[in-house]
């Protein structure tokens, strides 16, 4: 009866150099095929950065008093600001739809003894939270409640 072969029986005495192919971007990167949505998702980062600073400017003006508040309200009527906010609204909805679709799929199979709820439940809960938070805040800001 033959014995089992030694696992290193065929190993060379000196290890060979590991050769790797140079890294290359896929042919469709960055704006074709499935990479389009991926790249646009990244590019919304610039919109979010600008949005944060515009919100900072508006809130800072609120703290500066009524005249500063009225001045910033007037500036927001500028067509450039309106175009930016229109683009921002499209970006924010795109980010929400994409992220809330990915989020349930990214859950671990188990967290200790617990299993996450079914993906559909997470998806519906995220949309319910989005509609609830955004709708509630919009109602408050627009004077519908409070």
């Amino acid at each position, binding site marked *: 009866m033959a014995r089992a072969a030694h696992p290193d029986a065929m190993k060379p005495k000196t290890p060979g150099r590991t050769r790797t192919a140079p890294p290359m971007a896929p042919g469709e990167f960055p704006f074709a095929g499935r990479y389009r949505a991926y790249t646009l998702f*990244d590019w919304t*980062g610039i919109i979010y950065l600008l949005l944060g600073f515009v919100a*900072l400017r508006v809130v800072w003006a*609120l703290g500066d008093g009524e005249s500063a508040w009225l001045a910033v309200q007037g500036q927001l*009527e500028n067509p450039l600001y309106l175009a930016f906010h229109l683009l921002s*609204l499209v970006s924010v909805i795109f980010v929400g739809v994409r992220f809330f679709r990915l989020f349930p799929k990214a859950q671990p199979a188990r967290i200790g003894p617990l299993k996450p709820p079914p993906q559909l439940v997470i998806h519906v809960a995220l949309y319910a939270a989005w509609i609830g938070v*955004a709708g509630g805040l*919009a109602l408050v800001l627009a*004077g519908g409640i*409070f």
Partner: protein
Amino acid sequence: MKHLLLRLEPVIWLLFGLGIMVGTMLMTAWIAVVGLGAPMGLIPADALAFERAHALGSTLIGRVVLAALIALPLWKGAHHTRHISIDMGNADRDGLVAPLLYLIAIAGSVLGIAAVVRL
């Protein structure tokens, strides 16, 4: 610097994730009302009158919401802008780009907190 960024990765990812989730939820309403509705005259003129806006913003909940609305999108923005830079072939400059972007997010967050504290 790279070592520090790796150590801070969980914190950065937490703020980035909150920026996508909470930032998106809050920003949808903010853009619709403050960015578009009010300037285009689609909402009642007195809804964002100074007295009402200040009264809403200076409550505890108002301050927390406004601080989140300012700071969290900055972290989403900084992290994704960093990844644009990496994806466009600047991985070797990440040691410079990433700290710069996160410093912008930190500065904006601190100013955001200051803005709501002074209301």
